[in-house]
């Protein structure tokens, strides 16, 4: 599904040059649940933004669904994003002026989904994340966990092939965090590819593969089960 080859991204200010991604090579297959780990500033969020086409790489190639995206126009990228990708953020990023249902319906509006179909899809997805009873509330009236469940609902309502989650549990307590992770796992089990950035090793264990990053490079890739086994051996 995703093939990155020698992908680099450099941020420049007038006197500092920061290499956020340094010749990254990465392949992600359909149906994978990948966790990206690493310390602050290692480039994991940049990687996610590039994957989500919210940011463009300076060099290298990015093939998404068998087609190169690094040379596409803003408009084309918006179309790809709309079609195939859902996002979940650490800070939820819900629109305060809209209700829960309206927030979730937003992607469908840009998809030009007919109203009846849209209402149905919103209702179903809200029920699946167990927040349907709050459909007419504004985001500020919900707890953090509830807000994130709304964000998840919004991310999946268009049934995207790929979900990008940027520390989705970062602002949540353990219980709520677990709930969100369970939701992601469930989506993954239904066939959605998930790439999740996280700080937390225990959260990474929900993934099928962990990518460790440092200073814009990928250090290692472990299949979660194998890593656990190797740690057990060393112990």
């Amino acid at each position: 599904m995703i093939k990155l080859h020698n992908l680099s991204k450099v941020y420049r200010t007038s006197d500092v040059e920061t290499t956020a991604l340094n010749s990254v090579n990465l392949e992600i297959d359909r149906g994978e649940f990948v966790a990206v780990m690493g310390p602050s500033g290692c480039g994991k969020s940049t990687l996610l933004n590039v994957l989500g086409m919210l940011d463009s790489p300076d060099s290298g190639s990015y093939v998404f669904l068998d087609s190169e995206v690094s040379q596409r126009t803003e408009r084309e990228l918006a179309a790809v994003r709309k079609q195939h990708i859902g996002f979940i953020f650490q800070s939820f990023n819900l629109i305060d002026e809209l209700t829960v249902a309206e927030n979730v319906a937003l992607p469908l509006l840009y998809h030009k989904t007919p109203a009846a179909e849209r209402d149905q899809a919103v209702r179903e997805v809200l029920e699946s994340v167990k927040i349907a009873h709050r459909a007419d509330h504004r985001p500020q009236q919900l707890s953090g966990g509830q807000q994130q469940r709304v964000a998840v609902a919004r991310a999946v309502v268009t049934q995207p092939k790929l979900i990008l989650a940027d520390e989705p549990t970062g602002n949540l307590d353990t219980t709520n965090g677990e709930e969100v992770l369970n939701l992601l796992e469930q989506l993954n089990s239904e066939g959605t590819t998930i790439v999740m950035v996280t700080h937390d090793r225990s959260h990474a264990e929900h993934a099928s593969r962990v990518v460790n990053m440092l200073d814009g490079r990928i250090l290692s890739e472990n299949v979660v089960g194998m890593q656990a086994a190797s740690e057990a051996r060393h112990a």
Partner: protein
Amino acid sequence: MLKNYLKIAFRNITGNPLFSAINIIGLSIGLACCIIITLFVQYETSYDKHWQDADRIHRVTRDFFSNNLRLATVAPPIAPLLKQDYPEVEDITRIMSIGTTAFTVGEKTVNDEAAVIADPNIFEFFNLEFVAGDPATALAAPTNVVVSERAAQRLFGSTDVMGRTVNIANQADFTVAGVFRDLPENTHMAFEIVVSIDIVPIMMGPEALERWGNNSYFSYLRLESGFDADNLEAKFVDFIVRHRGEDAPESTAIGLQALTDIHLTSNRDSEWRTNGSIAAVYTFSAVAFVVLLIACVNFMNLTTARSTQRAKEVGIRKVVGANRSQLVLQFLGESVLLTAVAMLLALALVELALPAFGAFLEKPIAFSLADPLTLATLVIGTIIVGVVAGSYPAFYLSHFRPASVLKGTVSGGGSALLRRILVVFQFATSIALLIATGVVMAQMHYARTMDLGYERERNIVHSLPFFADLWGLYTPLKAELEAHPDIESVVYSSRIPSQQNLDSSIYLPAGAQEVRDNAVGISDIKVDWQWFDHYGIEFLAGRPFRENEMKIGEISEEQPVVRGAAVLNESAARRLGWTPQEAVGQIVREPQNGDWTQWIDREVVGVIPDIHFSSLHDEKKATLYAEPVDGYQRSISVKLAPGNPSTAIEHFETVWTRLVPNEPVAWEFLDDRFDARYRAESRQASMFAVFSGFAIFVATLGLFGLASFTTERRTKEIGIRKVMGASAANIVMLLTSDFTKLVLLANVIAWPIAYYFMSQWLTRFVYKAPFSDWGWLFVASALVALGAAWLTIALQAGRAATARPVMALRYE
């Protein structure tokens, strides 16, 4: 999707009441100004367009070069000769206003100023609608009169007046032979009572309509279709040569004015009434546009300043699939929606203000939403204003990159430089408007209080209607009036100060060689011998008249030369080739017939300075003051003693009613007459002041919004500074200094612009207020703008500066 946009827009409007209020109030004031000015412009440009064949009708004008007369009226033979000479002239009609005239119906006499003498074809020429009578024959008899419905009501108390009789000017009885619908207000003409021109030869002699010297007829001609007025006008020099002789084009010319241009572009001597001004139309259009632009700038500034608040929404929308054009459309939609709300408020404001505005201008300016064209214009206007105001914010907001805004790394707030430029623009235009208003006011004040060269205070004046004079009644009237202790003196004159003086004649120094070459056109006024004393006029040389010395004898074949006395003003003396001192004792000759075989020789007894006889609009004219002859004792001036004038006025009314029973008493204060001459300018000045006020108010509103935004953004900085020991005054200084620089810069830009335009404007006046009268306005405007800015910002800054620092630090 639209519903979603509307929802967001609506919640944004209600969720930010301060910003929304500033934007909506500003835009609605701007829109209301624009609507009102548009209605004003529409009305002003609608004049005379409603007449049948208006595009083919032209008015004939006449200029006299020697005394700089530019008349809207011409001599009676001119129009008929034009029709006779040029086949492209399809038809002509002539109208002469006879001014205030006495009308008697039964026992009741009223003075009415709406009467004219006209060619019998006038009704067909302008296609006036009749409610009674036949327009083709209504003026067939010289003793017929045709009245408008309003005049019929005024004279007879009814519009069913066919066949009734009215006595005009105590001269003759006339029979009503037609009633026409009132003229619309939007015409340069004004007549309600029409008598046939055929009465003129009967009352004033068989040659009265042949005289080229009586230039008092408004003359209109209609060209055949397809003929160009310019082509006809090019033949007018030949016309003057043919009818007035080889030399005539040196002293006089005739010209044409398109009927529909008269109201806004003609400002001639002897107009029907004060016309509109194309300059005013342009100026007010520009001012309304500026107010609206300032409001649009507020919207741009406040929206981009607040962009951080919207950045997250932009990011999310982009993340879930919105492309940039969708977002641009969304934000444009929002600003159009906001403009629509402002438009509704503006319409309410217009409804409220329009009656007062119409009454103020004395024009029936109306506004109806039922008119589909108006409605369409308003809708399109709303969209245009919304798009103009919203375009920059829309493109600015929609350019945010979601990766950065969602991480919170976008500082937002738009280009601070652009915002500064826009604030400077707002204040520069406001300051320029403020200065302009001040200059207009200063000129008004200068005109009102200027030393005119005579004492006009405490005078009441009474003018007599056309055809009437006080001959024979004057001596007892003067004696009885002056007997009252509160009346200082009474004099008569052919014209009263404040009236335009269009009377003039040909004069030359007696004994001059090559007589005709030395002749000059000089205005003349016939006055009482005590007139100079009455008006407190100083003499440069010589003395005022003595009693009876001005009287002249009858001119006849046996006595072709008669003698009299004259007083000149300084310009007249110079025109005749003398200094004031040299002039005294000289003889001025006034030819009395065409072949110059009869004349009046007047000895110059004194020379006075040039006085401003009519108003500051007119140049002081070379003028000769002389004795009255029959028909010139048309007005009297009564000087009252200081103190309460009421008993003196009562006395005046009683004596007048007894001694001049045929003329209804109708006095005026001379001061009021002068004020009336400046009414058009006074109105413009007031309008200007009001609209400038709006401009400044809207700009200040915007500054208030910006200041509150800046203060909010700097809350944390303010907290830290206070913790470090800054006083509240320090904080206020910190916050105001930035805007102070902008307002000062705005002054630097506004001053030369205002100076240029107002110097141009002042050239319209012959006598202009000197720079010392209005130079201080530049500094004053700067202070007003600075004061407004400081007050606004200090309100915000003061609040932030006096808050407990811990509150500020808790922010974020």
